[in-house]
Each structure stands twice: as structure tokens, then as C-alpha cells.
């Protein structure tokens, strides 16, 4: 299962929508002729500076590193909240901790007995939670590489996990349709919401942890009151649009969802209105994450089944850059919390995590 990525605050925005800008056309991506350090990474990739089509600011991301090491499909990548580390998880039962600046592998977190679907950092960056097909969630001390808590309770694969901002709560969603809320300090399940009838593919807290948003393969996005466990609202997308990833915007006023009709939508959940639709990529089969980028321009970043990473302008909904290089479906993306940096992860046969960065001075 490949899930999602990047839900932290770090990520930001997106905008653009609709109707297609065709994918490739405008912006081919670039390749760094000579990327730096360790891994001589790059792959064959086209290269071209972004055409200065419109007067709008455009991102100018270039491949910096290619991180190899996972032996099975990568399902999620996440930057630590202080931006010094990158975690990735994959179906090979491992969480790998990397340095996003040098591309070096720092540590493996091993202990799960089946593949992993999602990871989440605590706000202080000390702990990392991982969701696995072995039906458990582990909380790791990243420094020591040891499991601090082992949360058992789900009756099926755990597909998604997230911390609240205070990092005293953890929410996880499983393939049994349940959403569980955990007391992190004690490692105990506090509440189980029988939230959906199908795989819960994403769960996310809003900023003050009063709300939880969840989405499932039954096509529904639900918003829950954290304290009472009551369902407050259900958003239904079109029939063809089974939602696979959902998260609150950094200010928690909107939610961003990705769906199998190859569209990413930004919703105002108070009015249940879809405010923006971002299209151009391909997403019909896999669970692909999207995320906000707020460190420079305001973008929406997402992977795609055509092996590329797409970047949209939050407001205008145009595709502003396409990052090429992966040789498999890109299911995971994450944005760095402080810098213009994107990490993307791909499934077989590619099996790499790639770090892209924008050194500024865009047009």
C-alpha cells in the first residue's frame, strides 16, 4: 500500500485547478547537470529551464539527490519538523532515516514484521510513528532507533497515522474502517471510531486537534470531533472520485483531497464547497499523496502515475513545474518545513527517494 505523504504543517498549499494545463508542455524539468554530493544521482532526465511563460512566479526545482536503499515499494516520505532529517518507509518493513542535505542514510528502524504504509513525526522531532500491515503502530525514538511504544489494537492493516500538534495524541486509520485515537505517553488506545466501511486511507488532525479528518475507499471524507468522537460532517466526491488522501491546510480552514479521477481538490469544509481543482496529472489506481508547499511560492505538490511529480500554483491552478526522473509511479511527496525542498518516493521498479530543491532566484 502506498500512501500518502506529507501532511505536516510544513506543507502548504496549492492551487490550481482545473482544467488542465497539459502536463508536459510547459515546463519541462530540469536536471542538474552536476548535482552534488554523494550520490551521483541523476537519471536521465530532460532538462530545460522553465519557460517564462507567464509573469507569475514559478518554482525551479532541480534534482539534488537520489536515495537508494529500499528494496520494495516506497509508501511515504516525511521531513522532520526541524527539517534536518527525512524519513521514508516501504513495503520492505523498514523505516529509513536520511539526511536530506547530503543524501546519506543515517539509520534504519527495523522491527515491523510486514510492510509499512505511513509514517509521522512528532512535533519535537524526537519520535516517529509508523503504520504497518502487521496491524500495529510503532513509535520510535529516532535517535536511538528503538521502539518506544508498540500500539496494538487494529484488527487489520494500519494504513495511515498522524500526530496532533501537541504530539500527545496519535490518530491511525486501518483497513478495517476504524480510526483509532491513541494516548502517546501511555501507548494506549483511547477511542475507536467506526468511521468508514472500507480502507481508511488518510487521517489528519487540525491545528488545535479539535477535529480529525478521515477519508476512505468508500469515497467519503468525514470530519470528527476529537473529544466526543462524533461525526460532524461528511463530504462526498463524485462517484468516480474515490478519495485517497486528505489533510487540513496549514491554517486548518480548508482540506485538500486527492481522488481517483485524477484531480486534487481544495474544500471549504464549512460550506462543503470545492474551491479549487488541480488536474493534469494521472491518478486512477494508486493512493497518491499531495501536499502544500508554503516556503516560497504557494504550491500544491503531488506525485503521479506517469512517473512525474507535479507542482501547481495554489491560486491559479496551473501546473507550474513537472519534475521528471522517477522510473515508477510516484506515490509519496513531502515538502521541507523551512526550505524550498521536495522529497518524492516511488514504487517498483524505481525504488528511490529523490530530493529536489529550488535554490531561489526564480523568475
Amino acid at each position, binding site marked *: 500500500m502506498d500512501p500518502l505523504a506529507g501532511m505536516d504543517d510544513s506543507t502548504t498549499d496549492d492551487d490550481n485547478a482545473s482544467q488542465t494545463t497539459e502536463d508536459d508542455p510547459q515546463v519541462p524539468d530540469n536536471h542538474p547537470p552536476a548535482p552534488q554530493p554523494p550520490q551521483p544521482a541523476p537519471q536521465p532526465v530532460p532538462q530545460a529551464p522553465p519557460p517564462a511563460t507567464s509573469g507569475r512566479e514559478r518554482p525551479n526545482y532541480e534534482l539534488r539527490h537520489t536515495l537508494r536503499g529500499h528494496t520494495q515499494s516506497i509508501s511515504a516520505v516525511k521531513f522532520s519538523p526541524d527539517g534536518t532529517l527525512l524519513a521514508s518507509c516501504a513495503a520492505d518493513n523498514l523505516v529509513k532515516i536520511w539526511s536530506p542535505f547530503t543524501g546519506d542514510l543515517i539509520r534504519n528502524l527495523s522491527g515491523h514484521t510486514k510492510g509499512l504504509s505511513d509514517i509521522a513525526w512528532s512535533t519535537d522531532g524526537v519520535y516517529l510513528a509508523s503504520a504497518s500491515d502487521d496491524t500495529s503502530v510503532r513509535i520510535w525514538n529516532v535517535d536511538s532507533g528503538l521502539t518506544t511504544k508498540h500500539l496494538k489494537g487494529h484488527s487489520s492493516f494500519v494504513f495511515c497515522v498522524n500526530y496532533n500538534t501537541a504530539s500527545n495524541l496519535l490518530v491511525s486509520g486501518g483497513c478495517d474502517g476504524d480510526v483509532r485515537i491513541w494516548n502517546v505517553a501511555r501507548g494506549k488506545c483511547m477511542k475507536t471510531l467506526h468511521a468508514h466501511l472500507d480502507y481508511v486511507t488518510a487521517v489528519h488532525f487540525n491545528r488545535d486537534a479539535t*477535529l480529525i479528518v478521515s477519508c476512505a475507499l468508500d469515497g467519503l471524507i468525514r470530519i470528527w470531533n476529537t473529544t466526543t468522537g462524533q461525526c460532524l460532517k461528511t463530504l462526498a466526491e463524485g462517484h468516480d472520485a474515490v478519495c485517497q488522501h486528505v489533510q487540513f491546510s496549514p491554517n486548518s480552514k480548508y482540506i485538500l483531497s486527492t481522488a481517483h479521477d485524477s484531480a486534487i481538490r481544495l474544500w471549504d469544509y464549512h460550506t462543503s464547497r470545492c474551491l479549487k481543482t488541480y488536474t493534469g496529472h494521472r491518478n486512477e489506481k494508486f493512493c497518491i499523496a499531495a501536499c502544500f508547499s508554503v516556503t516560497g511560492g504557494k504550491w500544491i505538490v503531488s506525485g503521479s502515475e506517469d512517473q512525474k511529480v507535479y507542482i501547481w500554483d*495554489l491560486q491559479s491552478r496551473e501546473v507550474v513545474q513537472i519534475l521528471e526522473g522517477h522510473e515508477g509511479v510516484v506515490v509519496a511527496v513531502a515538502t521541507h518545513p523551512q526550505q524550498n525542498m521536495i522529497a518524492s518516493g516511488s514504487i517498483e521498479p524505481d525504488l528511490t527517494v529523490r530530493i529536489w530543491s529550488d535554490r531561489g532566484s526564480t523568475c
Partner: protein
Amino acid sequence: MNASLLNPFTVTHPTAVQTSLVSGASFARFDPTGKFVAAGRSDGSAAIWDLDTRAVIRWCEGHVKAVTSVDWSRNSRYVLTSSKDWNVIIWDLASPVDPPQRYNTIRFDAPVVSAYFHPRNSRIVLALLSTGEAYVVDSRKEHRARVELCETLSEDDDDERARSIMTTARFDPSGRHVFVGTSTGNVLVFNSRTKIMVARHRIAGAGSMKSLEFAKVGRRFATNSSDRTIRQFILPTYPSPIMGAECAVLETELEPTHRFNDPINKVSWHAMCYSPDGEWLAGGAADPATHKIYIWDISNDGQFATALDGGREPLIDIHWHPGASRLASTTNQGSVLIWHCPSPERWGAFAGGFEEADENVMYEEGESEFDIENEVELAMRKKLQEDEAVDILGGVDDLVDHKMNGVAGDPGDEDLEWADDEPDDDWQGWRLKVIMVDDDDAY
């Protein structure tokens, strides 16, 4: 921020017990964010509860006799506990250990009845001793001092009238003044900077003052006194003392705007407190057999709204949540009851695009509701709509890191400038570390 989703109902006082924290407490205080509760115990410890997980996250163990009061600094970083063992301890919750590190210990020579932080600077502490003396202790480098608040007696009658015993002392919400209640039914007002008495208010018929509470908004305060009546007053304004000048003490009798009591049972009151919007006043009845909280509707001319019944264990303390319709009431068995305003489950929320109507409504067809529209035009319109800019970052203050609460009042306001001098490091963005608890099945 989620008010429209979370609180669709109009009743804004709590109505039912949500949870009970068994903590052996003699009183409980919400912190200013409303996420934690500090419960003081008679064995000398204080427990910090996390309301998200309903678990104790820190034990403040340092006193050898009963804790008499706790207070939170404005951004919840520091907690102060006062005790009958003559000490006031200030705990720093930013320390990632349990029990938290002591930031300071202030020692007196009598049991401490209550202690409070200055609302603008946690380096300034007001303490009241069981001997009836109140002190302002300032631990800032430039201002280090411990000053007793002394009542200024008027010249004519100081012979026959001994200095009265102080029975309660509080800062007002701005921190400019200290209000002190006395055993003779007076409210004395001191300037917190100069520690000079600026006013003496006589409250007729009140008897000994038991406690004082201020509404956070609106210039009102309430007193609880030994005549079993809660009185509400409009807060008078006091001129800022001019340096060097001998100011006259304002001597007035304050007339309450409202009196609250129970005309039938004539119960006395253990505690009272205002809701954060100042629209409700809750009184905890000192009834030896029941757990009753009376709620008055201040916005509706002080009408009695309801009496909440919390079961058999008698009430000894109440405190209102700083931002929501929640109350914490403590029973004499040491349980802290958290009251909330429950919202009924709306099953309609489980269906997308479905709205429950309270009663049948005739459907009215919209003007062009069933017209066939050109799809291209629809797409165009949607596109236009989507061009509207959205703001995904703004509107949340905690996205901005306020290093200091440097927003002073009016520049030139000496009292506030004095308080903001040498600010504490209780800045807004600090976070309490989660400490993992090793229990039974831990690794």
C-alpha cells in the same frame, strides 16, 4: 476556529458531567489554554492533567503540607503552588522531566493561603499568608523586593480601629492593582507598582470577605463573603499615582449591581467564577450533602439560570474553563468533575450533502433549477469561481511565533511598563514535551 462546526447550539453554559478525574484533589484550575488542569492535593503535591488524554502528565511534588492554591502563568509555562508549609514553589513545565524543574522557591514565615502570578509577568507574585498579611514578591533582577501591602489608615480613627486581617488578595486582570478583601468587609485596592493603597471600599453588610473574582471582559468583579451572598460590582477606575505625590486614598462605599444567594436554603458559597465571556456566573454551593453549581445569567440581568447537580459528593471548589463552556468542580472525595455542554449526535452528518431539517419544509424550486444548461458554460462558471484566491496560512495566530508578548498597553502607562520590564520567558510558542510513561507492557 471551528465554532460553527463544533458548537451549533446556543446554550453556552455547561450542563452535564463529561468526565471525572480521580485525583485526590482539593481544587483544580484550568490553564490559560484550557488544555490542562492543575489539581492541588492535601498531601502537598499537585497533579497536572492533560485533558486531551485525561491522564496525569506531571506531578509537582515539593511541599510537605497541603497545597492551598495553584496559579498558571499567562502562557502556561510556569505553575505556582502555595502550601501550608510556608513555601511557594514555581515550577517550569518547559523542563522535559517529571516532576518538573523548580524555577524558584519563595519562603515565608507563615502558612501561605494563596498566591498568584502577576497577569503580565510571572516574576511578580502576590502571596497571602494565614496571618492576614499580603506580600508582593518581585524576583526580577532590577526590582528584587518583597513588599508587604499595608493598609493606610485614615488619621481620625486609627486609634480605635486595628488593622484588619486580609482574607483574600488578587491581581485585577490588567495587573495594575491588587484587590484585597478583609475580615471587616472592606475591599482595599493597592497599586501593584508602588504598593500604595489607592482605595478602600466598604461593602455594607458583607461580613468577612471569602474570595474575589474578576470577569475577564467587562469591568466587573464579584465578592463572596460570610453573609452567604455573592455580590457583583462594577470595577471603579483609579488614577495612576503620580510619582512623589502623596495620593489621597479613595474612600467609598461600593453598591453591588447584583446580589446572588439562595433564598430558600441560604447556602454559603465555596467558590464562584465567571465564564470567559463574562455572561455567566457560577457559584459552588457549600452544601454538606449535595454537589450543586448555581448558574446566573449576567447578560440577562443576573437571572438565575440553572442549578447543576453533580451527584452526592459535596462540592468544595469550581473553576470555569478559560475559553469554552466547561467547568471543573472538585468534590470532597477528591474527584474533579469536568462539565461540558454536550451536543446531540447528528446522524445526518454521516451522509454527504445531507442536511437535517427540524420539521417538514415545503420544497421550493429555484428559478432555474431544472433548466438544461450548457456544460461548457457550467465549466466556465466553475472555473471562474475557482479563480477566487484562498488563504491557507492566515487567520491563525499560532502560526506566528510571538517571542514575547511585547504588546504593551498604552505606551506611557507606567504601571504596565513596570510590569513588562524584564519580561519572563513565558513565550507563546513553547510546547510541553510529551514524556513517555513506562507501564506494564512497555518494552
